[in-house]
């Protein structure tokens, strides 16, 4: 079978590659919706730097995607089954370390081809079926699974007092983290801290929101989720250290390209726990699907953060989607018609 793969070859340049693929045990998935992540944008705009770009490209972008099964050589998946595709691809088992932290694991759109393909050959443990979630919303399941991974880590490591949890960052990750925390911990006071005033209007489900330069001095949180990333990571983490109670846990989710200076003196003094959260695995996707299938209000809220849906019929539409995404407040999703 010849498969068309839409690969980034240089900054803002995507072309079609034709792969001669042989189906062995894989499930064949035809993507229906793909979603652009900041990581994809960093490649698309060339901000990963020359060295990384030349090392990783050409490569198909996108690691957030859903589709339906069009072929299963083993007949285990019914044709038409709607599935979310898992970008993390482990090559070994480890009883202690989660699959998304194993250095040997491969990750879609970071070293090997992402989901911008006509059909995607997926390992049968790399797809999770869903039923009552609209495809357009389901494309955010990957992001939700990342939050599920962070939540599992948080629950394993944080102490039991969870009266107040702060979330720094009011972008996509901050939104989904806040939503999940508020639904799963209804008695916890969930507070969102952010820079963009207009984005705060999207958070009516949390208890309070603050712009980061006007936080009351006496406000304290038991634990915090850092969902800022980028250049803002440093300020966010240090502000969290200022406002968190002793022995609190800081779940770090934001990705930064450069090293971050942290006030370790106060980390030591307060006895804080900093937990690194990155990507997600099969169990996190299962948890994400379960959460979204169970909570209709979460499905509605998640749909709200889709800033724009763009129909993709060819490469010019893909470029348009990436360009628009740079100006969108929240997510840009691509209805994949290629």
């Amino acid at each position, binding site marked *: 079978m*010849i498969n068309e793969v839409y690969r980034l070859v240089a900054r803002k340049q995507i072309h079609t590659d*034709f*792969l*001669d693929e042989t189906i062995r045990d894989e499930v064949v998935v035809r993507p229906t919706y793909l979603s652009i992540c900041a990581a994809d944008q960093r490649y698309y705009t060339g901000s990963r730097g020359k060295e990384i770009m030349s090392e990783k490209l050409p490569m198909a972008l996108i690691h957030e995607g859903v589709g339906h099964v069009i072929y299963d050589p083993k007949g285990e998946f019914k044709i038409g089954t709607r599935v979310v595709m898992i970008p993390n691809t482990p090559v070994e088992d480890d009883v202690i370390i989660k699959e998304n932290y194993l250095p040997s694991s491969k990750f879609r759109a970071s070293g090997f081809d992402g989901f911008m393909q*006509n059909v995607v050959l997926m390992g049968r443990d790399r797809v999770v079926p869903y039923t009552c979630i609209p495809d357009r919303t389901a494309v955010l399941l990957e992001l939700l699974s990342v939050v599920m991974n962070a939540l599992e880590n948080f629950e394993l490591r944080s102490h039991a007092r969870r009266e107040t949890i702060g979330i720094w960052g009011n972008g996509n990750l901050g939104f989904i983290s806040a939503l999940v925390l508020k639904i799963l911990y209804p008695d916890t006071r969930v507070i969102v801290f952010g820079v963009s005033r207009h984005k705060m209007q999207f958070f009516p489900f949390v208890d309070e929101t603050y712009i980061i330069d006007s936080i009351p001095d006496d406000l304290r949180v038991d634990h915090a989720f850092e969902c800022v990333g980028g250049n803002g990571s440093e300020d966010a983490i240090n502000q969290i250290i200022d406002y968190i109670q002793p022995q609190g846990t800081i779940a770090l989710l934001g990705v930064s390209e450069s090293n971050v200076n942290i006030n370790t003196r106060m980390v030591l003094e307060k006895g804080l726990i900093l937990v690194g959260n990155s990507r997600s695995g099969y169990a996190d996707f299962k948890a994400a699907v379960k959460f979204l299938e169970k909570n209709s209000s979460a499905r509605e809220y998640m749909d709200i953060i889709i800033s724009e849906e763009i129909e993709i019929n060819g490469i010019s539409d893909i470029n348009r989607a990436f360009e628009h995404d740079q100006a969108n407040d929240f997510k840009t999703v691509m209805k994949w018609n290629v």
Partner: protein
Amino acid sequence: MIYAEVLAGGKGTRMGNTDMPKQFMMLGGKPVFVHTVEQFILSEKVDKVLICCPKQWVAHTNDTLKKYIKDVSKVIVVEGGNSRNETIMNGCSYIEKTWGIGADDIVVTHDAVRPFITQRIIDDNIKSAMEYGACDTVMEAFDTIVESTDGEVITDIPVRKHMYQGQTPQSFNIRKLVNLFQELTEEEQNILTDACKAYVLKGYPVHLVRGEAYNIKITTQYDLKIANGLIQQ
């Protein structure tokens, strides 16, 4: 039911001492027609795939298929005809004899030597044939088309924006297609090389489906070289 007819009627060109039709030549790691058939096997909407090929190549086609494709339960190799239309009709006759023809049954006819067909093109064909009864896959013409009826001088240069290049698939409501061919005189049948043209001549609409520039037809050694150059193992 939705059927695909993969038209593998090419008689071949001389390769060394043996005639080898293009559809059986290697493209990447598989013969050309295997790539094409695989796309129809993958399509969840297509119920059966008929490969229509010359009589002497039926056994070869069957054996080659089994060598490259694990599950061929959806595929049947049938004997083609002397012309493109006869081949299509042979396929339709096989469908009629084996399963009968339902009022809404669709046939997606496609050149075996166009292996770059995509799921999107197959889907769009099925959708359009179901809605309108007949459709043709085309690309906007990039080159100016020049008409010459005597091969010596230009008789016309049609407006380019009205010109399209025909690809395949061409897809039809089977019952209507069969009825239309029965309406044609023998002379008309001999002249018409294209099923869609029969529709147009009889005044029936044929809708356009967007093709792809890379949905190329491999008819020469040059095409095969280009196709092999395009794909990566």
